[in-house]
């Protein structure tokens, strides 16, 4: 790659918000035909940098050069005109509009003042074809699976004929197969000469795709280097200042206790023939591809999307949960995979968030800060969980994802259910907080509670679980021990062959 192929250069970008210096003299560049990865913990300033590039924020100081020419963006429209396309972490599709309408949003071709719908359809088909995607151009975007929506987002960027493509955690919501497909696509775009800025938490991806890596921490650039000079453990150390080895907590030597939960023949609209048991003191991992039913299984256990068939026994007695409250009453807790939409009361204080479950089951006329609902109780819990905030009366919306997750977890620990169901417990949170959450899960199990962990992150499932159930098309495809490794789990998840070290399911259930 030669110097004159530099597509994008950001020089000494500084950006402050009231009370926070989000970026401090950050410089960054990316060449045509290069994938330049940006790594950093949450709050390191990656998203701010991207938003400056996209014209959403205006920098306080510093300059941006596109193809060597200075540029200043006061609105996203100007960044787009300069050939920059950003695929944000949160998808921006219109659920009720067609794929073609979404792809050409803001770029609609017209003929004689009227929308040229034919040109839109043809163009959309061509772009999707170029991406090797079978998605129909006149499907409603809201009907697509997340991975397909991600493809449409990329097609949107291609429609713009973007020379610079920025991807902010594009695989965060994808399972491994779709993530791999996306990486192939990124490679293809790179070979077409697109400059790609790639933000991700997933180390294997970065190792596989990036040409160079930039590490950010606390709003500053720590280092930029070719990927060859940056082994994964070094990246992690630069990001958080700790080694990978103490990432997952050690498994206990003691065997699990009595059976807590036992499901036989469970099923509903998305699940069939679910047989599973969870014992006190163990962490059961549930893996599977997107749409395999693993999330539906978690919700069925909790009573949010109840089983309509089969029998469920909990603590030895049959139960039939019709709604979340019934699940909680029975002694089950649930951490949603959508923290923002189903977890946080964003405007309420950390204390109010932490006490939500307790208050849901207290008498309505009771004082909201009396006895077990007192500030002191809540604060003790949050200190135990190492929640980092300016103060505990602060609104939870201002916290990082990891700290939010700790508070939500605390909400359940305050109730101390016999069984806790975690859905994607570390989605979108930084490495340090991840390690803390894993340790907390292990602590919960060690106190004789059962833990079910649904996760799309295979290393996590293997690193944390005592045993692993793999879902495929709404059924449990098999059970295996963590020793089978990622390939063994994946083999079950895609439904091809039994895992090499598959434990006979009958044996496990006995």
């Amino acid at each position, binding site marked *: 790659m030669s110097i004159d192929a530099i597509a994008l250069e950001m020089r000494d970008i500084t950006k402050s918000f009231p009370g926070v210096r989000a970026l401090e003299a950050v410089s960054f560049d990316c060449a045509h035909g290069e994938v330049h990865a940006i790594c950093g913990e949450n709050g390191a300033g990656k998203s701010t940098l991207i938003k400056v590039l996209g014209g959403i924020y205006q920098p306080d100081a510093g300059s941006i050069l596109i193809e060597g020419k200075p540029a200043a963006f006061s609105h*996203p429209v100007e960044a*787009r005109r300069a050939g920059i396309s950003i695929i944000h972490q949160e*998808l921006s*599709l219109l*659920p*009720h509009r067609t794929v073609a309408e979404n792809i050409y*949003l803001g770029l609609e071709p017209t003929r004689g003042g009227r*929308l040229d719908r034919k040109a839109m359809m043809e163009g959309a088909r061509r772009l999707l074809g170029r991406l090797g995607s079978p998605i129909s151009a006149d499907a409603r975007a*809201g009907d697509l699976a997340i991975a397909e*929506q991600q493809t449409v987002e990329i097609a949107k960027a291609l429609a713009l004929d973007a020379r610079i493509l920025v991807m902010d955690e594009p695989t965060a919501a994808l399972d491994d197969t779709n993530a791999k497909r996306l990486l192939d696509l990124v490679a293809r775009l790179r070979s077409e000469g697109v400059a790609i800025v790639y933000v991700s938490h997933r180390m294997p991806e970065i190792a596989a795709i990036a040409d160079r890596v930039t590490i950010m921490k606390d709003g500053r650039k720590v280092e930029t280097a070719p990927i060859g000079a940056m082994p994964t453990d070094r990246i992690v150390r630069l990001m958080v200042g700790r080694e990978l080895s103490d990432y997952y907590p050690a498994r206990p030597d003691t065997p699990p206790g009595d059976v807590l939960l036992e499901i036989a023949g469970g099923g509903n609209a998305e699940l069939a023939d679910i047989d599973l048991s969870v014992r006190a003191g163990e962490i059961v991992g549930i893996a599977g591809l997107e749409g395999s039913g693993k999330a539906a299984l978690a919700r069925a256990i909790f009573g949010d999307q109840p089983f309509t068939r089969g029998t469920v026994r909990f603590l030895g007695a049959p139960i039939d949960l019709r709604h979340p409250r019934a699940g909680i009453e029975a002694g089950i807790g649930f951490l949603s995979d959508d923290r923002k939409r189903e977890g946080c009361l964003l405007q309420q204080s950390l204390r109010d968030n932490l006490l939500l479950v307790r208050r849901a089951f207290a008498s309505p006329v009771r004082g909201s800060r009396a006895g077990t609902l007192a500030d002191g109780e809540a604060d003790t819990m949050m200190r135990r969980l190492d929640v980092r905030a300016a103060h505990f009366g602060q609104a939870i919306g201002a916290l990082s994802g990891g700290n939010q997750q700790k508070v939500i977890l605390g909400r359940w620990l305050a109730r101390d259910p016999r069984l806790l169901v975690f859905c994607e417990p570390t989605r979108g949170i930084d490495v340090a907080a991840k390690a803390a959450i894993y340790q907390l899960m292990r602590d919960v199990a060690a106190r004789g509670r059962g833990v079910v962990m649904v996760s799309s992150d295979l290393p996590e499932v293997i690193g944390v679980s005592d045993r692993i159930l793999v879902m495929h098309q709404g059924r449990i495809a098999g059970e295996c021990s963590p020793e089978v490794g990622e390939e063994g789990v994946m083999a079950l998840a895609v439904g091809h062959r039994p895992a090499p070290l598959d434990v006979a399911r009958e044996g496990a259930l006995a």
Partner: protein
Amino acid sequence: MTLADTLPASRRTRRSLPVPLLLFLASAVLYVGAALYTGQLNQLGASGLVGLAQRMVGLGIVALGQTFVILAGSIDLSVANLISVSAVLASFVMQGDPAMIAPAVLLVLVVSAAVGFVNGGVVAKLGVNPLIATLGVGLILQGLLSASFNNFAGSVPEAFQGLAYGTIGIIPWSVLALLALAIIGALLLRSTRFGAHLYATGGNMDGARLAGIRTDRITILAHVICSLMAGLTGLYLASRLRSGAPWVGRDGVYDLESIAVVVIGGTLLSGGRGGVWGTLAGVLLFATLDAVFNMLGVPAFPKQVMRGAIVILAVAAYAIRNKGPVA
């Protein structure tokens, strides 16, 4: 936003009859049923049907405008007050003089556009919740109007009454005008970039912004269209009543009813999906109910009670399928 949460629900949607057709059939059954039940068979003749169509005009025009703002993810609670303002303004400026028709109409349209601009600006630029913004603007308008006029003001000349009472053959001008406006509205939404950007603004404001759409301008333009439609409704009412009074808009409950028919017509209250034909079918349903009440001889006050209940039930017919939280 991620679309993950909309997935399971939308995947299961079964394609049923289009909403406008459904509402049209329901209206037809109601109307014919009532006419047969009460033995008023003349209601089924041409003049009866024309009368029914005429009932649609006032609410129809303002509801077309309301469709635009709701699609953009906003709402307009000031339409009833603006209707009063424009009706009074028109008849006050005209004072029965045919020469003043053109200046009066022009003035009404300019004032309406200005009100829409203010509404849209307060919503888009100042970031005020649209309910509050338009409620506030409505209060401001009503206060100024009622402080200046307390009864019918002026009158409209004979020639201007033709707008409400003139016909081509047996079809009233006003019905044709409503139809023309609906067609223009449908074309705007379906076949222009503005239409596409309007759906985008209402469907996913952040996404639209990131796609380079100037959502502020779209919101303001939608409000200007809505206010112009309210202004036209005011002109129509002045023509029909032969004069304007400061209570004509509020008496017609045009704010609530225009929102109700838009929602009944299948447009999402949160924006991003819907269209004018559904709205027009909703207006037809309301006009039909009105006509049916008249045929059945329901007195005024019980009619009002039933209207309130019907608005709720009609919206409930949609809303009850919605599984998300409602506040």
